[in-house]
């Protein structure tokens, strides 16, 4: 149960084995994806045809590597752009929300807080279609009224960004609020006492204190946006982000090219996660 309660040896070993097995289960699919990125054949499956870097660097058919595959590179760029916008927007709104809920008492505050949490319990696909429906209602109304076609309201990147932002903002708010709650307000008062103005106090004392949470929220928002599928699927136009592009390819059958992309994704996000952890530990 806990180490101080004596347990039979067999039970402890069995428990340890179960946990070990769990981690094997966690690692298995990812390992397999990674390993087959180096398969010198047309399929990411057995038989193993030997080792190759071609799925990364190859530049002639049938083995065009990631770095020479235009459509994949473009999708990656789209994803980075979308993720960056979503992260920026979410952290900005999240910071504002955190201050609102932490610093002000007002009627309906707890109700508003619950409403703010709702996007987390709305299925992503429903978020996607509701925004799709609403935006085209507005676009159609604009067309009927003034014969202007607002491109931004048709499926495409602006809608994808808004759709992802609509629930990632909640997560950013929660991450930043958690840290703001730990802030000792007397530090701000001390700054005021030493002659700082109200905004200066927040800028020089509170924001630096929140920095780890801001970075953390930024990274989490970036990763969540990057790997989002459900909401994006409903709002995407002609510029497909990476997950959608990969999904379309996967439907047609897979080559180790997709493994190579996946491996790069894994490395990229692990690196990002690692940077975040190191940054937060340093604080």
């Amino acid at each position, binding site marked *: 149960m806990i180490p101080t309660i004596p347990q039979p040896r067999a039970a402890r070993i069995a428990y340890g084995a179960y946990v070990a097995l769990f981690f094997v289960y966690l690692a298995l699919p990812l390992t397999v994806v990674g390993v087959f990125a180096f398969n010198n054949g047309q399929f990411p499956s057995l038989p193993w045809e030997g080792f190759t870097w071609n799925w990364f660097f190859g530049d002639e058919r049938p083995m065009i590597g990631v770095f020479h595959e235009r459509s994949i590179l473009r999708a990656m760029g789209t994803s980075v752009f979308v993720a960056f916008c979503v992260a920026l927007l979410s952290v900005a709104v999240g910071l504002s929300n955190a201050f609102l809920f932490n610093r002000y008492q007002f009627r309906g505050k707890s109700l508003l807080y619950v409403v703010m949490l709702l996007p987390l319990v709305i299925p992503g696909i*429903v*978020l996607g279609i509701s925004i799709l*429906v609403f935006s085209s209602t507005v676009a159609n109304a604009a067309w009927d009224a003034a014969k202007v076609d607002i491109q931004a309201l048709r499926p495409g990147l602006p809608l994808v960004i808004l759709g992802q932002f609509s629930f990632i903002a909640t997560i950013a708010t929660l991450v930043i609020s958690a840290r703001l709650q730990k802030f000792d307000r007397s530090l701000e008062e001390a700054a005021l006492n030493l002659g700082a103005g109200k905004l200066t106090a927040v800028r020089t004392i509170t924001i630096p204190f929140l920095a780890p949470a801001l970075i953390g929220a930024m990274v989490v928002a970036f990763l969540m946006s990057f790997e989002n599928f459900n909401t994006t699927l409903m709002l995407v136009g002609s510029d497909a982000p990476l997950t959608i592009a990969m999904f379309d390819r996967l439907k047609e059958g897979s080559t180790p090219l997709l493994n190579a992309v996946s491996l790069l994704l894994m490395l990229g996000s692990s690196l990002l996660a690692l940077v975040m952890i190191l940054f937060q530990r340093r604080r």
Partner: protein
Amino acid sequence: MKAEAKLGFVLLLTPLLLWLVLLIFIPHIDMFLVSLRERVGVGKYETSLANYLTFFREPLYLWTFLRTAVMSTVATAITLLIAFPVSYYIAKIAKGRMQSALFLLCLIPFYVSELVRTFGWMILLRETGLVSNLLQWSGLVDQPVEMLYNDAAIMVGLVYTSMLFMVVPLVTTLESLDDSVIEAGYDLGGNAFSVMREIVIPHAAPGIVSGCIVVFMLSLGNYLTPTMLGGKDSLWFTQLIYSQFIVRFNWELGAAFGFMLLFLSSVIVWGMLRLTGQTLEKTMG
């Protein structure tokens, strides 16, 4: 409030309201209104419950709906059963560096896209996949076995993909249980079973509820995993929504489906909260 404070308040409130009203509230109301429209001619609509009637009259729709709900429930239960012992191990048995290392190991797979995770299972489970080859090699079967495109494969994928959202809240709540409370349970004559039932599980209840809510929600709203591991005809409700919106371009019916999905998930979330006496703020916030 002083004028300055009032200005600050309004400035902070505006983005929140813009976000919630423009991206959450009005879109859902609009979607509801669209779901109440019936197309009677080209560009002509009437308000009616026709779309919902279609949903209830067509056995395939209703069946898919119920099947998705039941499968999601089962996936949630399995995830909880698998995750609880592991979370307990991380929170209460592992100590120091080992503890943080294990916790981190749990997180890493989920920094990677769901697509990649599902792709991994496809490589493992398909006819030419590793598991099939392993079974042939070990002599258990004498020809390739297709393990994709069935409900078990969907289940494996859903459980795998949701694991993190169960492990994290469980580890967090279990960690907050003081060791001495468990010791007190033993000291007063409890055994592993009774301490688990009367002390550990009641303490972990908020974590269990929040984990279950999130996992259930994610399973219910999942499109990728059922489609890739279960095949195109895996009868997942999100596929119906997708096909009405994107393939058939029947937004009215799609909106009605979307609303049914939202309704189902809200009812289950609300029910779970009520059943365990938790609130949304406590479990999510």
